[in-house]
């Protein structure tokens, strides 16, 4: 049984700390991580709660395969209600923190209420303590980690924390772990900040007990071999990381540029993954816990600063989307987001929104308070306004609330490229129809990793689909959404799915947990998790009208390039998607579907 069997509940106001048993029935129904965390959260929290109030809770949940030798088995999820989107938030991160969290002997941490003064939580195998963190408040994520590591004095301990942006309740702040890994999306850092919880430091050596050691070890060997032999996970990702996508997505004409006003960036060669190597920035690739892929980038910039990234998404957001072609600045922007605790995707998209608002005269020069002009292409502006955003200084107070609220505050929400108020990542839906349906129906808003249709529509894995065809796309989207819920709940990395399929995950889960999922039962667990999230959002007040894309993507054709003339055809896809989900025309799960899923 690969669970520790324990939930740790921490009340930040009363400082009461309790340990509870993990229900094995719930574990089987919801697998772990995202699924289990969402179940616990939605049972305990009113969906209409104000995300930054003391009534909201913050859950850290490890997966069924976290802290095992399963390839990439080191991930954890943060589950809460998002201040950015008003939806269920679950934000996923790698590194080593998830492994160490589970090694303390707990599967799940639940934080309730708010602390009066800044605090951090220390956990090891024997003790759990809430400690004063007033000396850490105001420190960035790297400083916080270094100070805590020195204070605790345990070399193998791992830290998750917020930076100044989370303290300042920026709706686009994340939670950083291992300094440069992020549970980045949905504004989970602001929830942690609202609770005055600066950090969690974990240290433990509890082994995760595997049900059938021999079978599990054999299964892991087979899966690692598949990952090593696969062209994407065995060669492409280790060599170039995720930034190999810059040239791919630009070449097919789906690389959002100038805040989605264009779909190709003429300076892509200056900012691509290849450029990162050719310019000599890349030192080496780095891996998260138990990962045979190692897609991370350790980078050194010309002025000597080292750090991780940028990954494809932030590199694009600060690059093409803002029409900035200086890779040095883009990399610095990524480093700053990691240090300040900002969601680097949302931060870049929000600055691009500000640039369009400035370009169109909605933001006036005097409002910039002598700061750099917010012109597209102005690299200096990127670094300047990231800091303003994190510290909520001047116009940064508006930027800190994300793209949608920024654009809305000027009376032009149509300039915001968001779904459910969360910033859309680096693929223009007008060029990849299935991926666009995934954005529109995503339970946490504009997100690419809950339904990575780029894999079949662009990369050709597991098979190549025509990105402009609508045929079969709702079915593919449903399968990808359900399977991703399984992967997130298992504690594995989505990148394994370039090479592994549903039967591979079922084999790993069954050998580790001792459950006897058929592939269908496992996929049904994924569907259950998706519907549970949907139910939470509906109760929170979201409606069918929120399953949409920005008007620009539905009505304005891509002006040039391979996808010239295309818009996203959501209206032709959505009804069938609802139908195969077993939902009404208004996107509400039917009683039969809920019964079938035991919801």
């Amino acid at each position, binding site marked *: 049984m690969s669970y520790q069997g324990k939930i740790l509940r921490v009340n930040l106001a009363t400082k009461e700390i309790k340990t509870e048993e993990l229900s094995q029935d719930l574990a089987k129904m919801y697998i772990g991580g995202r699924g289990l965390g969402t179940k616990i959260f939605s049972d305990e929290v009113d969906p209409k709660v104000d995300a930054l109030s003391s009534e909201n809770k913050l859950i850290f949940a490890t997966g069924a395969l976290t802290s095992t030798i399963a390839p990439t088995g080191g991930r954890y999820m943060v589950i809460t209600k998002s201040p950015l989107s008003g939806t269920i938030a679950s934000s996923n991160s790698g590194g080593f923190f998830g492994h160490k969290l589970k090694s303390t002997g707990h599967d799940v941490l639940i934080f309730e209420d708010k602390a009066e003064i800044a605090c951090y939580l220390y956990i090891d195998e024997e003790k759990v303590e809430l400690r004063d963190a007033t000396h850490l408040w105001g420190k960035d994520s790297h400083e916080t980690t270094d100070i805590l590591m020195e204070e605790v004095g345990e070399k193998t301990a791992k830290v998750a924390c917020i930076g100044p942006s989370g303290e300042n309740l920026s709706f686009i702040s994340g939670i950083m772990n291992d300094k440069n890994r992020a549970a980045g999306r949905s504004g989970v850092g602001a929830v942690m900040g609202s609770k005055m919880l600066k950090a969690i430091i974990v240290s433990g050596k509890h082994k995760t007990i595997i049900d059938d050691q021999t079978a599990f070890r054999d299964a892991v060997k087979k899966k690692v071999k598949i990952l090593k032999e696969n062209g994407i996970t065995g060669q492409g*990702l280790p060599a170039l990381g995720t930034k*190999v996508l810059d040239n791919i997505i630009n070449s097919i004409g789906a690389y959002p540029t100038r805040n989605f006003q264009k779909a190709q960036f003429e300076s892509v060669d200056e900012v691509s993954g290849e450029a990162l190597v050719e310019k000599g920035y890349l030192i080496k690739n780095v891996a998260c816990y138990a990962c045979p892929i190692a897609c991370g980038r350790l980078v050194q910039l010309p002025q000597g600063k080292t750090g991780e990234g940028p990954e494809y998404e932030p590199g694009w957001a600060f690059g093409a989307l803002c029409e900035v072609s200086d890779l040095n600045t883009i990399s610095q922007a990524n480093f700053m987001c990691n240090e300040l605790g900002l969601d680097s995707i949302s931060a870049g998209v929000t600055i691009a929104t500000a640039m369009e608002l400035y370009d169109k005269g909605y933001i006036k020069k005097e409002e910039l308070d002598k700061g750099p002009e917010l012109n597209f292409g102005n690299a200096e502006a990127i670094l300047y306004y990231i800091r303003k955003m994190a510290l909520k200084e001047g116009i940064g107070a508006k930027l800190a609330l994300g793209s949608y609220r920024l654009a809305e505050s000027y009376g032009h929400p149509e300039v915001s490229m968001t779904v459910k108020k969360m910033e859309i990542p680096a693929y223009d839906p007008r060029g990849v129809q299935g991926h666009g349906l995934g954005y529109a129906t995503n339970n946490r808003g504009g997100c690419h990793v809950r339904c990575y249709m780029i894999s079949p529509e662009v990369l050709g894995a597991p098979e190549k689909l025509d990105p402009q065809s609508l045929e079969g796309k709702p079915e593919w989207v449903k399968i990808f959404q359900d399977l991703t819920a399984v992967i997130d709940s298992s504690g594995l990395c989505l990148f394994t799915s370039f090479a592994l399929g549903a039967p591979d995950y079922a084999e790993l889960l069954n050998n580790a947990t001792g459950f006897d999922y058929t592939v269908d039962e496992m996929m049904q667990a994924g569907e259950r998790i998706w519907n549970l999230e949907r139910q939470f959002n509906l109760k929170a007040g979201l409606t069918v009208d929120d399953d949409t894309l920005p008007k620009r993507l539905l009505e304005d054709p891509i002006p040039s390039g391979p996808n010239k003339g295309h818009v996203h055809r959501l209206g032709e896809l959505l009804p069938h998607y609802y139908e195969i989900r077993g939902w009404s025309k208004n996107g509400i799960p039917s009683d039969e579907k809920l019964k079938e899923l035991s919801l």
Partner: protein
Amino acid sequence: MKIQVKLFATLRLNLGVAGLDIELEQPVTMLRLLELASIQLESDIIPELIEDGKIMVGTILLINGHNVLHAEKLETLITEECVVSVFPPNGGG
């Protein structure tokens, strides 16, 4: 006619070449173009892209941004001046 061939990812990094121009007197298939590129590069790039006569999963071959998998695959004819983009198997997110 001039065909601009662009090389990406590990192909570009390993060969140290971002691309090449190929002059054609008559239309050729995508497979033949890759053979001609290999000759010009003095390095056989085909094993990086094709296995058992088929385009490998993850390999991307584009003509003016359009994937040949949705045309005639390796038999797709190149009949006019164009940009051919060549990616060995890769992915990300």
